[in-house]
């Protein structure tokens, strides 16, 4: 399969002030040295707890945040250093679905105008009548009635708003869609409807998804491959079933164990102690070392690198290095 997106040594550091006037600048490494690729028509899941950098990574990939270092290849073209003006044709090809459907739709625009806006901005359809026709088709594609065209966002429920959002994303006929917690704000019965819709649209429009979520059940359902992040780094990357059946990194193991499962009682579980350290004050070696049960001497001194241990299964842990 063809690679549609490749990320190499991507970094995003946030400036966090100085200790004193002449003091050293402090940085928060929200995304630190990330490498992965996305294949055409594939869904890549980004999983991790809050503060692990998964949303920052999603935004940096689209250049909604300026990367600190590294490169982002969209079909062999490096977009990481392109100016906003030169980015415009790429924006059309890479779109994003946001978490909160109440915050991401302008309450003073009709649904029709919201979906038509990218068509105007990117100059895709020039006449108004054609645009209305296209918007109506999009509304139908996402499971809404075309005559909702003139209604306002306030008239819709959360699930319907998320459908509007997806229709807007599809308007520019993107190739990559980054879904940042797209179903987290929805009730379970609505969540499953939106997940099914996203799967249907992937086939219909030949989309590649990057699906960011903290819900590991949802990530597994939709993703072909999954990257688990912890404090700005990918700790493990593997195909979905392989990752869930054979997790290698100690963090992935605990994370999978902590998911509330329907046929599982609490007593059997291994529990993670402690909490995520502050990103301002990271451990010098492996970032998971203070909470890890299997730490060895090297862990405190040196940060491990992401290495392929079996086919298509990457782990960043000293336990799996020769």
């Amino acid at each position, binding site marked *: 399969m063809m690679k549609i997106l490749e990320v190499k040594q991507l970094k995003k550091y946030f400036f966090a002030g100085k200790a004193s006037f002449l003091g050293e600048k402090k940085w928060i490494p929200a995304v630190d040295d990330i490498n992965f690729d996305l294949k055409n028509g594939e869904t890549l899941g980004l999983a991790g707890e809050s503060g692990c950098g998964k949303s920052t990574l999603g935004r940096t990939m689209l250049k909604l945040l300026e990367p600190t270092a590294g490169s982002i290849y969209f079909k062999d073209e490096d977009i990481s250093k392109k100016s906003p003006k030169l980015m415009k044709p790429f924006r059309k090809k890479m779109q994003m679905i946001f978490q909160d459907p109440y915050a991401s739709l302008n309450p003073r625009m009709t649904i029709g105008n919201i979906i038509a806006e990218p068509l105007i901005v990117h100059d895709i359809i020039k006449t108004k009548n054609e645009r209305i026709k296209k918007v109506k088709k999009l509304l139908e594609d996402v499971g809404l009635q075309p005559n909702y065209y003139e209604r306002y966002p306030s008239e819709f429920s959360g699930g319907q708003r998320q459908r509007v959002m997806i229709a807007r994303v599809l308007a520019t006929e993107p190739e990559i869609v980054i879904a940042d917690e797209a179903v987290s704000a929805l009730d*379970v*019965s609505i969540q499953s409807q939106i*997940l099914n819709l996203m799967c249907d649209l992937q086939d219909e429009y030949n989309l590649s998804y990057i699906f960011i979520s903290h819900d590991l*059940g949802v990530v597994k359902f939709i993703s072909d491959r999954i990257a688990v992040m912890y404090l700005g780094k990918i700790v493990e990357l593997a195909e979905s*079933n392989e990752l869930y059946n054979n997790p290698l990194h100690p963090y992935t193991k605990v994370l999978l164990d902590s998911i*509330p499962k329907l046929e599982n009682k609490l007593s059997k579980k291994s529990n*993670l102690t402690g909490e995520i350290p502050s990103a301002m004050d990271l451990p010098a070696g492996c970032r998971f070392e203070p909470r890890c049960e299997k730490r060895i001497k090297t862990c405190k001194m040196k940060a491990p690198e992401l290495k392929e241990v079996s086919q298509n299964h990457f782990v960043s842990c000293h336990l799996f290095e020769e």
Partner: protein
Amino acid sequence: MVELLTVRNLSIHFKTFFGELKAVRNIDFDINEGEIVGLVGESGCGKSITARSILRLLKTPPAFIPNGEFVFNGRTLNQLSNEEIRKIRGKEISMIFQEPMTSLNPVFRVGEQVAEAVLTHKKEPKKEVKKRVIDVFKSVGIPDAERRYAVFPHQLSGGLRQRVMIAMALISNSKLLIADEPTTALDVTIQSQILKLIKDARDAYGMSVLLITHDLGVISEVAEKVYVMYAGKIVEETSVEKLINHPKHPYSVGLINSIPRVEQPHKKGVRLNALSGKVPELFEIPIGCPFNNRCEKKMEICEKQDPPLKKIEDNNKVACWLYNH
């Protein structure tokens, strides 16, 4: 088993611009001593206001309770004055909320807030109370408890704040803990720590717990008995095992099926068995069974009459005409 709280025929209405909204309609439920009871449902089904009504925490108006009886530990809560209810709040019945930051006062030290829960109800020497608070902090797994006594809520993480709230319930030896979405704002690894803590507290102190959540996974891990709510009604009362393996009400079935399960392998092209439609708004609840507009097994009677909650086997009651001959 001894019944600790029984709620009979409870309705909660809201007076609004659009008229009277019947948010909760004639529900019954029981909590036995030492039992963890789950109340699940999607947003807007009335689960949170049901919980709040027990401690009279609803703002009246707009809310009012046209009918309903709460019997807690042999006392009828309805007949108590506000003064008497206040003596029960935080002492015999404690409550923890979804977002611990909004339920702790930001300008007081957390240790003092926990101590206050003791001191409002009983005069005790402050030093002794402080010692007890630190002991409870240790038992709920707050590291560095002596120092943490004197910190402010914003200095703690979400998981630690929720632990402080639980400490508050434990220190007053509450008989009932009402936990309203206690882990929804937390990460999975912290969530499983907090759930374990709630379960351990039950085992150690014999406290009963009413756990309100939308997450069936959470329910199945800690609860024993479950009430499924839909549009202001209890549609099924069952044990956790039965709910997961043999849900009866079509809504319970739909809810269980629509969850992406971690145990199932990923396969391209597979779709979830999603429920169609959405939860009705309170002013548009259909006549007859409230679920009839989304139900696949709808019959004629469903559009005319609301089915009563009826016992169909041991520990299992369902409000559905399919089981009601």
